[in-house]
């Protein structure tokens, strides 16, 4: 690796100088490949000579090894031995073993390699177990949720619902444009999750159906609405729109428009927590559709391999656009994917905020102990995929049947049954929330559009002379 980097630098540093002229001149007269081959060999020799003279700071034996046979650690147990003999392409393309590698992770012993190549003599039977969190199984006391907190959760779910009902209307009035994917019906997933994490400390990321989670994470409804209006006061200053909400203060890492693309990011957020050795974890949301992307599988494998403190939450609302999960997944029981990555998988009822909360509490606890996991939450979106989708692919009566187990109505009933709030109080909350949304719209309306110069802001952190 170092060798190669060295050459790249030589070439680029010298460009424009006299030395570059000689180099470039030589390149012109000779086939480039032979020139580069000579350079690679010359430099390898020089480095070896330097090491012999003991001027090299790195451990001599290691450096020697690096210059010679690739070790088993870099995956070439029978790799060719001598860098100097190897073809130039190989010498420059294939890095010798990284010198600072192999300290923590011990290379497998010959016995282990042998064991790994053995084939079991009898059929292999696997027993898999996945925890389930059905609805109506949990009380708020069991979940250590205070009475007031449950009322607050109710208020938050209602806020998401009322906010998005108005979004729909504002879209029709052409105050909002672009794609608008509504979360209505799924509110228990966001609220139940946020009540189970260290809000503001743990990292959270999701896909493009992000308004509900943003509000659950405490982003300001006015700023969210202003974003949808494309105003400078919006959560991303009018840059991202509906699909790309962000909230740094809340540790809300977005809103991501490309299906599946956020899942590796969730692994990366968790990697940073692990790297820093802090107590925090990452919760990464994505849809059922994203499970069919390679990115999902790669990310879960990475998390399983590195024991990342991550909870991967699949919000299975049964549809990816117009395609039902049964038509998209070879195995539509998505939580079972966890088994492939050697992590716990479970499934929870997304129409019951307590079921979600219990499940996420359990999974967050695992994550804090360095155990990643996959949690499928079964839910349902009431609206079409986006505002322009009439959802004709639904069976008749399908939506109505789902609405019977509406999470907000369910929680309302619980609050009344358990005497946690009176009907009047709940009505008042609804009025408050409605007003809050109207205020959000007023704020969005009164805000200014971004100045045109904002087009060029935040492309890079520093100065850059833009082409015109």
């Amino acid at each position, binding site marked *: 690796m170092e060798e190669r980097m060295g050459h790249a630098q030589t070439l680029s540093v010298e460009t424009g100088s006299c030395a570059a002229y000689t180099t470039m001149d030589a390149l012109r007269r000779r086939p480039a490949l032979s020139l580069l081959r000579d350079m690679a060999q010359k430099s390898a020799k020089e480095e070896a000579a330097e090491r012999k003279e003991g001027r090299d700071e790195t451990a001599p034996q290691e450096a020697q090894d690096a210059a010679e046979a690739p070790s088993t650690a870099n995956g070439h147990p029978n790799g060719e031995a001598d860098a100097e003999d190897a073809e130039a392409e190989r010498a420059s393309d294939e890095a010798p073993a990284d010198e600072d590698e192999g300290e923590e992770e011990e290379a497998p012993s010959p016995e282990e390699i042998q064991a790994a190549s053995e084939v079991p003599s009898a059929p292999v039977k696997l027993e898999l177990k996945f925890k389930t969190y059905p609805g109506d199984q949990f009380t708020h006391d069991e979940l250590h949720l205070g009475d007031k907190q449950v009322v607050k959760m109710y208020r938050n779910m209602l806020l998401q619902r009322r906010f998005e009902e108005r979004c729909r209307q504002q879209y029709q009035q052409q105050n909002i*444009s*672009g*794609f608008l994917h509504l979360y209505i019906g799924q509110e228990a997933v966001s609220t139940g999750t946020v009540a189970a994490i260290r809000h503001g400390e743990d990292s959270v990321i999701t896909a493009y159906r992000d308004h509900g989670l943003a509000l659950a994470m405490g982003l300001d409804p006015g700023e969210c609405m202003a*974003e949808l209006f*494309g*105003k*400078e006061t*919006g959560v*991303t200053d*009018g*840059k*991202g*729109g*509906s*699909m*790309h909400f962000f909230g740094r203060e809340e540790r809300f890492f977005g809103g*991501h*428009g*490309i*299906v*599946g*693309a956020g899942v590796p990011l969730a692994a990366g957020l968790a990697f940073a927590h692990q790297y820093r050795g802090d107590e925090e974890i990452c919760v990464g949301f994505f849809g059922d*559709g*994203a499970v*069919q*992307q*390679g*990115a999902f599988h790669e990310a879960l494998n990475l998390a399983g391999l590195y024991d990342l403190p991550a909870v991967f939450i699949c919000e299975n609302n049964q549809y*990816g*656009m*117009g*395609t039902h999960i049964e*038509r*998209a*997944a070879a195995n539509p029981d998505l939580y079972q994917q966890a088994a492939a990555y050697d992590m716990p998988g479970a499934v929870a009822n997304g129409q019951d905020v307590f079921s979600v909360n219990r499940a996420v509490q359990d999974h967050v606890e695992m994550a804090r102990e360095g155990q990643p996991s996959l949690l499928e939450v079964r839910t349902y979106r009431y609206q079409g995929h986006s505002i322009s989708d009439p959802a004709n*692919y639904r069976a008749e009566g399908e939506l109505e049947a789902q609405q019977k187990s509406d999470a907000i109505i369910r929680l309302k009933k619980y609050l009344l049954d358990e005497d946690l709030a009176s009907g009047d109080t709940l009505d008042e909350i609804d009025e408050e929330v409605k007003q809050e949304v109207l205020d959000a719209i007023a704020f969005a309306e009164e805000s200014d*559009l*971004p100045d*045109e110069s*904002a*087009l*060029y802001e935040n*492309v890079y952190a520093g100065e850059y002379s*833009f*082409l*015109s």
Partner: protein
Amino acid sequence: MAEMQLREAIRAAMTEEMHRDEDVFLLGEEVAEYDGAYKVSKGMLDEFGDERVVDTPISEEGFAGMGIGAAMNGLRPIVEFMTFNFSFVAFDQVVNNAANMRYMSGGQYGVPIVFRGPNGSAGQLGATHSNSTESLYANFPGLNVVAPSNPDDAKGLLKTAIRDPDPVLFMESELMYGLKGEVSEEEDYTIPIGEARVARKGGDVTLVAHSKMYHVATDAAEQLSEEGYEAELIDPRTIKPLDIETIIESVQKTNRLVVVDESNPFTSFAGEVAWQIQDRAFDWLDAPIARVNAPDVPAPYAPNLMDAYVPGADQIVDAAKRVMYVE
């Protein structure tokens, strides 16, 4: 001639080719039961059945690669990307496999495949959903890139693309799907890949513009005409292979060139045309070549910023005046 929307012309081309050749099939997200995210493949499931009009999961890398494998093994897939933004998930398959296969296999395996779908911005969709990808893909040897501006060209070119022995990226536009135009009713109507169309004659300045930008440039040409300047407007139709001769001929007449292209400017199609013209027709130029691109920034969401982002007719008029040295 029959009047058709762009989406209908594309559908007609696919349908005719599927009747003509059993090896042709359509694969992509929502193409079958949903009739296509933009209704391009409406009715095709009923007509051809689910063996030839195939819904896929959201697995771009997987189904693009599957299409390439099927093409290597004798079929002629049409792979729809819901938009070319999502082709980035399949980038490796398109540029490493589809583009290189014939060369790398010493000519043993070609990849006769069409990747099609909308390209470029389509309103306030934000940075991830507004990429213009033609300049990027045109960079890779082995790929053909076609980006028509009207239903007639779309039909004729898509039929040719489906028959082409090599991969063709066929780029459409959400904003143009409803665009109506006269389409030839000639039986088996095809247009060769790699031929530009001189859409408007004029002697004062040459405008080159494709796809959506062709329409913006038409508008600009009309404005210029009202002010007494006659622009010659060329729709390259095919980005790669590029019909540079037609542009050279025009520049030899007008001596001035403006290239319009919705890509971001750095390494854009417009930059490439400008280079080829200065290389081949430098002595014919009376002014530096101007280009009109999206700005050198990602696409924003806010309506006013997006208006400023997408190249407009005014910018083209200004550029034309600049190269004509008029105020």
